């Protein structure tokens, strides 16, 4: 999230699209409602279903799942055609004026794809800028050059006229125009608009581009960096921001340092490759500091037990182009690649797309470790529906861990706010905190390698682990406070360091001193920091995420002394763009930062040089400005509408290219498995005529792995249902409350039918298209009719039904490989 939850109250227009905060982030609605009550803010809700958020909105516009880029592309056209963009912001703070390679071609001139498509991959040679002899990008400040980004943007979305958009999305034309008009009203300096999204945007084969389209709109309207603005990624788990920040993904180390690849044999080569360079003379290019962060991270792994180059060599590397993402893991597991597997605090047997494939894959392992609070469909997969335990070799360890109130530690919410929580009680039985469990396993592995021969021992033997001590009982007690300090970082030797931004002035540090902020980290191995963006979270004042101060000096709800926010306690990132090039807030009534004559006051300034210095504010981009043209993505520098892989239409009405051309198709020979089947890809499949989308309810969380075991919650939402329109129910002879089977080519789930006017059939280019929706919180372990053995835990309130993901396909977004769970094809049959 660029801003934070409380900041919703500062918005004039709140667009809820790709999310349903009233149900899924309920307390956030406190601030949405405050914006409505106190500022007269307007809520616009765009969703295939009339959700609880829609019920609170001033304008509700229905949309067919998977057509968001068409909807928003139409808004870009509306904003440009009606001159509603924030001219000064666009000219100064975006790459609108940059001149693009004349050989670059837009999909409208190139059969629906960008120039450079080779097979299922783009050659990006034409996705470049024109540069002068000095390497500086050529620009046209008047935005008139036909090759400038602004003109290309205008041309790209000139195809997205409202008639065509309405045919694709099924949104009535008047509703499109209402949303466009109201949202575009925030293009003035004294108006702010925020967009709230969640998995409704990410879980598509064009997920990243959905969000890109909205970023383009927010930049055109000058809504990034300001109070009441931004793009709010409302994340699904309490610490999924923190776990991502800390590199629990194949492609990043902590702090978003890209995982090294095999073609970068040395730390020097890695740093050179990953440190962006720029010829733009005023650009700060913050990532120029990359070598300081990589060196400090390597120190947090091995301390002084290895030189930086040795440490780098010990770290595991990917082959160039190697993808080890979620769908790939279960694909490889199904094919027998892995002997061992950790499902730690996770329930992939229900949360993984194509759960039947996931469940089959678990049976191909030699061993699995599952750490959880309750029995679950993953740990117990071998005794699940259709499984014969006597034929499943997988050895399984199900380890009981402490819940969040049975240990202490911190977590980061969607607003990047790191808050501490404390231990209230002991865990049940002999359950242990996750930190204790991983420590004990690590020590046992290390002991084995110390005693026996084995593969490359160095990284295990040289790893540092100063995170606690053995208790009297001989058990290791993991101390999160010591880890918090490790993440913040230390000086590893006495060192005199030049003060950032003060040339010629120095400060002395002693070995063991905490690093004040990441600006002090060094590239020579003299500092360590586990995750550079969290540097500054622990100081001689203590662990700042523990703070409970309630001062609000700006009056806009930043609460700078409540806990701690990364980076450097900044509450609204990109806030350098909330002021004009002379340093004056665009909207003085809602100032995030302002210049008091000698210094910035308000939020911790982001990228703001001294007023009038000419420094562009988007300092994490090499050229200092935000990207309307984004050549970094796999599927195009501008978003383009493509149909979901499984879709209810014969053709993409926008172009001859039906689906995203660079997605990885698991039904191709040699890629996926015999279980990977799709429907309605080339042509509509009459066996699966309805669109299906998954979603959540307030009373459950994720796969229900915790909430199904809590009787209060299970009573309120007891089982699997399918929501469908009155029209569809009539067509299928289904009554409200009937038991029905929802079926895809990959599986089926029994559901209770909820017949409701919340869904309406779509008119797609003259055809009636139905969409249904299912929650994804259920699983067989808490059901009444499964087999119970003596000693089995039995839910106090049983739930009904199995996982929604039994239906979803193995197909992912072209950039992130997040599965397309929000638009796939099913049938609904009365039982």
């Amino acid at each position: 999230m660029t801003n934070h939850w409380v900041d919703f109250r500062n918005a004039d227009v709140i667009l809820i699209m790709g999310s349903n905060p009233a149900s899924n982030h309920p307390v956030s609605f406190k601030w949405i409602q405050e914006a409505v009550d106190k500022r007269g803010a307007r809520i616009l809700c765009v969703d295939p279903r009339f959700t609880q958020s829609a019920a609170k909105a001033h304008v509700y516009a229905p949309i067919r799942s998977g057509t968001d880029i068409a909807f928003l592309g139409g808004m870009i056209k509306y904003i440009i055609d009606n001159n509603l963009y924030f001219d000064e912001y666009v000219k100064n703070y975006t790459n609108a004026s940059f001149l693009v390679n004349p050989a670059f071609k837009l999909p409208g001139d190139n059969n629906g794809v960008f120039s450079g498509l080779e097979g299922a991959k783009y050659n990006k040679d034409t996705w470049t800028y024109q540069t002068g002899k000095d390497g500086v990008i050529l620009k046209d400040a008047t935005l008139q050059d036909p090759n400038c980004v602004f003109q290309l943007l205008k041309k790209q979305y000139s195809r997205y006229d409202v008639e065509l958009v309405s045919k694709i999305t099924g949104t009535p034309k008047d509703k499109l125009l209402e949303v466009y008009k109201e949202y575009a009203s925030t293009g003035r300096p004294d108006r702010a608009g925020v967009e709230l999204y969640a998995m409704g945007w990410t879980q598509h084969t064009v997920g990243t581009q959905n969000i890109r389209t909205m970023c383009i709109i927010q930049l055109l309207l000058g809504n990034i960096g300001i109070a009441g603005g931004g793009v709010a990624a409302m994340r699904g788990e309490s610490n999924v921001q923190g776990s991502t920040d800390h590199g629990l993904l194949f492609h990043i180390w902590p702090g978003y340092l890209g995982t090294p690849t095999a073609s970068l044999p040395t730390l020097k080569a890695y740093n050179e490759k990953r440190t962006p360079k720029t010829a733009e003379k005023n650009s700060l290019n913050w990532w120029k500091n990359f070598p300081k962060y990589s060196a400090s991270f390597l120190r947090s792994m091995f301390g002084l037990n290895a030189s930086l180059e040795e440490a780098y060599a010990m770290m595991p590397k990917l082959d160039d182009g190697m993808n080890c993402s979620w769908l790939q893991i279960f694909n490889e597991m199904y094919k027998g690649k892995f002997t061992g597997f950790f499902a730690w605090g996770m329930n992939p047997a229900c949360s993984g797309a194509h759960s039947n494939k996931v469940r089959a894959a678990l049976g191909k392992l030699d061993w699995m470790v599952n750490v959880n609070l309750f029995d679950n469909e993953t740990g117990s997969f071998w005794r699940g529906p259709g499984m014969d335990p006597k034929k499943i070799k997988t050895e399984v360890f199900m380890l009981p861990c402490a819940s969040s109130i049975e240990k202490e530690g911190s977590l980061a919410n969607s607003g990047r706010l790191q808050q501490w929580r404390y231990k209230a009680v002991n865990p049940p039985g002999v359950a242990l905190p996750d930190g204790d469990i991983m420590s004990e396993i690590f020590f046992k592995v290390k002991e084995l390698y110390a005693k026996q021969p084995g593969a490359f021992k160095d990284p295990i033997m040289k790893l540092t682990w100063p995170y606690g001590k053995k208790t009297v009982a001989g058990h290791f007690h993991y101390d999160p406070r010591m880890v918090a300090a490790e993440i913040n970082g230390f000086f590893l030797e006495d060192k005199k360091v030049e003060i950032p931004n003060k040339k010629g002035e120095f400060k002395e540090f002693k070995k063991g001193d905490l690093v004040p902020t990441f600006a002090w980290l060094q590239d020579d191995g003299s500092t360590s920091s586990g995750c550079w963006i969290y540097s500054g979270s622990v100081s001689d004042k203590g662990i700042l995420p523990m703070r409970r101060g309630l001062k609000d000096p700006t009056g806009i709800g930043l609460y700078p002394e409540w806990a701690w926010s990364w980076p450097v306690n900044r509450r609204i990132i990109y806030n350098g763009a909330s002021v004009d090039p002379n340093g004056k807030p665009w909207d003085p009534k809602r100032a995030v930062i302002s210049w008091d004559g000698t210094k910035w006051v308000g939020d911790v300034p982001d990228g703001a040089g001294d007023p009038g210095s000419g420094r562009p504010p988007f300092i994490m981009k090499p050229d200092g400005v935000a990207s309307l043209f984004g050549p970094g993505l796999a599927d195009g520098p501008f978003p383009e509408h493509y149909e979901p892989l499984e879709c209810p239409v014969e053709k993409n009405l926008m172009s001859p290219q039906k689906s995203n051309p660079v997605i990885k198709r698991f039904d191709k020979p040699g890629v996926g498995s015999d279980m990977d089947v799709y429907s309605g890809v080339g042509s509509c499949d009459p066996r699966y005529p309805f669109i299906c989308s998954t979603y959540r309810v307030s009373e459950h969380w994720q796969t229900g792995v915790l909430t199904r075991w809590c009787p209060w919650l299970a009573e309120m939402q007891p089982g699997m249902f399918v929501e469908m329109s009155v029209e569809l129910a009539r067509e299928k002879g289904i009554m409200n409350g009937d038991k029905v089977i929802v079926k895809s080519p990959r599986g089926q789930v029994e559901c209770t039918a909820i017949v409701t006017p919340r869904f309406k059939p779509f008119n797609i280019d003259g055809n009636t298209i139905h969409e249904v929706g299912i929650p994804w919180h259920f699983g067989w372990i808490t059901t009444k009719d499964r087999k119970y053995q003596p000693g089995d835990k039995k839910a106090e309130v049983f739930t009904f039904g199995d996982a929604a993901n039994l239906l979803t396909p193995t197909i992912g977004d072209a950039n992130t490989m997040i599965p397309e769970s929000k638009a796939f094809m099913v049938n609904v049959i009365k039982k």
Partner: protein
Amino acid sequence: MDVSRRGFLKISGAVLAASGLGVSLKPVSAYAQPLKIKYAKETTTICPYCSVGCSIIVSTRQGKVVNTEGDPDSPINKGSLCSKGGSIYQMAVNENRLGKPLYREPYGTEWKEVDWEWAFEKIAENIKNSRDASFKVTNEKGELVNRTEGIASVGSAAMDLEECFTYQKFLRSLGLVYIEHQARI
């Protein structure tokens, strides 16, 4: 009569409303409050469910959770909680929580309770066997990769930040590259 705090307030409020007295509820609430959480120890926590980050007060007495409620000091939730956040009492006070390590042997048909020590040792042996059998020093091009290809991990956004850092450290020291979690789904 066993009356919960909320029930007591409801009854008191109804009595006051019926009697038509314009009496403030404040003293009543001050009197009612100690009933459930009297002598209880309070700690704060952050809700483990969605990503809003609501603060919750956990009241414990003699090592048992007796009450959980929204923390009115938090500028984020100001005491409010949703149905899930309001139920975290049941996550701690719940007979169905796993309290012992469980083990299922290959081709086994049931769980067996095991000791931690036994489980840790056996898991460590498994890790070493899988790692030793699948460790690649170089790839097909002869480039240095130092990775373990035979083990994968998913998890976890359900852990604390510090544990996430430590977990990635553990996995990468083993040479894992197949490292994923909830953020990808």
